């Protein structure tokens, strides 16, 4: 008996950590070695990666399949504009405050839409996103239906020069992605994460073990929504312009994110990373084709869902027994 040990980390996960840390240093230095367009693209990649991680936490772990997270992307974006223009806050403070406000808003929202089960929950979240979009379109001070731009004076608070501003918004995106991934990882490794995994595998059994399912799901919904709003703030800090249709776009902030997670591998931490890289690679190749690109994405997502429901990462993991983020326990013989 004593020859057996239970571990979480593996050689692959330790190697991944070292490589990951090295990659972080290289990426953090990007403003010194990357061109302006590349920097922008990378910033966008980090923000999509964050949205994908958060959606994956909800759909892949908590069983909360939402097609309405654009509600919080847009909310975060609008809070950035409202709090800087009318509240006089620094943009970064405004973005963080936007996250806090989103958490507060998400509690009553959850109380309503958690009454809907399964797929109806999904459409319910979409209704909420539409309510947000139509409501913000009514606020004339924020530009109403046509939207508004971030005033130059506020943009300058991020950095006086254009290069400094771009570097700053790049670091903010990178930092946000790191925080999101680390938080999701630590959350899943914690006692609550274990409860979540139990719910994912069987709600009935989890309830039998004394897990408060409603509460656990609520926590995930609130945390994911708050983070999504922060990412939304960062997205519109990059864009510097907001309108209801752009802020609450179901295609941009939900369809793409779902495709990323499904293709990469839902219910894993590695999946969204692989999915994001594939998504942007595909986009760079097919960008000139516009609508064709979206059709291809849709077809790929359907084929993956039918043929390999655990995505690209699922295939790799089954083949090589790899895990870069050590979440599962392994029993190993010491000798």
């Amino acid at each position, binding site marked *: 008996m004593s020859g057996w040990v239970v571990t979480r980390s593996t050689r692959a996960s330790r190697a991944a950590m070292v490589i990951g840390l090295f990659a972080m240093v290289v990426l953090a230095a990007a403003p010194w070695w990357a061109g302006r367009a590349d920097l922008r693209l990378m910033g966008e990649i980090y923000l999509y990666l964050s949205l994908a991680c958060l959606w994956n936490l909800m*759909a892949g772990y908590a069983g909360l*399949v939402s*097609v309405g997270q654009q509600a919080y992307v847009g909310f975060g974006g609008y809070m950035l504009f409202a709090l800087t223009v009318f509240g006089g806050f620094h943009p970064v403070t405004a973005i963080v405050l936007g996250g806090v406000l989103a958490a507060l808003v998400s509690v009553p929202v959850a109380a*309503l*839409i958690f*009454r*809907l089960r*399964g*797929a*109806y929950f*999904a*459409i*319910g979240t*979409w*209704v909420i996103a*539409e*309510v947000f979009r*139509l*409501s913000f*379109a*009514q606020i004339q001070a924020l530009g109403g*239906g046509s939207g508004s731009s971030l005033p130059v004076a506020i943009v300058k608070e991020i950095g006086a020069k254009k290069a400094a501003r771009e570097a700053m918004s790049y670091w903010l995106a990178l930092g946000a992605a790191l925080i999101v991934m680390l938080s999701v990882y630590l959350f899943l490794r914690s006692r609550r994460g274990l409860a979540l995994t139990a719910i994912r595998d069987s709600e009935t059994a989890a309830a039998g073990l004394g897990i408060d399912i409603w509460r656990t799901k609520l926590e995930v919904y609130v945390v994911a929504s708050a983070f999504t709003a922060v990412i939304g703030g960062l997205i519109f800090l990059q864009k510097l312009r907001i309108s209801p249709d752009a802020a609450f776009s*179901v*295609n941009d902030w939900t*369809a793409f994110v*779902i*495709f990323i997670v*499904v293709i990469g591998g*839902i219910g894993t931490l590695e999946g969204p990373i692989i999915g994001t890289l594939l998504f942007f690679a595909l986009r760079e190749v097919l960008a000139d084709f516009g*609508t*064709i690109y*979206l*059709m291809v*994405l*849709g*077809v790929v*997502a*359907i084929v993956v*869902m*039918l043929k390999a*429901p655990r995505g690209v990462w699922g295939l790799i993991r089954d083949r090589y027994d790899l895990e870069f983020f050590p979440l599962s326990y392994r029993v190993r013989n010491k000798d």
Partner: protein
Amino acid sequence: MIEWTGAIVQGILLGGLYALFAAGLSLIFGVMRLVNIAHGDLIILAAYMGLTTTVLLDVHPFLALLIVVPVMAGLGYVLQRGILNRTLGDDILPPLLVTFGLSVIIQNVLLETYTADPRKLAGGAIETASVDLGGITLGVLPLLTFGIAVAVIAVLQFIFYRTSLGRGFRAVSDNQDIAQLMGLNKAHVFGVAMALALAVVAIAGILLGMRTSFDPAIGGGRLIFGFEAVIIGGLGNLWGTLVGGVILGVAQTIGAKIDPGFQILAGHIAFLIVLAIRPNGLFPRVEH
């Protein structure tokens, strides 16, 4: 006062259209517990099919139904047996994500084929014809739409409870495995259910196209209206769905009367209020 009565009556008639959006959704969910995210895009697809038929054959949209309804029904059967049947199971994720993918594909195929310009079906004289009912003027087309909605729901209700096909629907709905043991081919039954649902979608699409202009992007909104009508009326109750559609329609026309920008929002708010007070809808089906 007469203005408000007018708005309410218009809302009731609009509700007929929403009930048509909802009926297919409700039928599919009732038979196979499938929620089709592409439902709204299929309505718009039917409208465009109607457009092509009317332009190519130079016929009235109502005559186009003779082509669009069977084509959509056939498409439904093939879609169900070819793709959707493989997604059904305990996990809700595959059907949701596959129909979501379908929705994006349909939207972009329509965008590629017909461009983003708003289009409309030319209904001719019926579009502007109206009848005067004691001070309230009602359009013939909205009246006809409502009548068709009532007829469609009556037919669906008849099929569901009075025919052997409906018995098959109810059997697989209650227990798929036992229905299979009793000699039903559930894959086929699901295919027929989807065919029937898309036949209703075809009718809804043509009526929508005659009433307002449409473009490839508006499918999501129609799905939401249908869904709201289903939830307001109560899951599994087709007549309830009609009432749900009417409540939604009335909320929207009253909202529009207060402020034109408030129309759609008022409908959503009515839905959320019902969800808060009666989470199972106003007329949930009683389990016998």
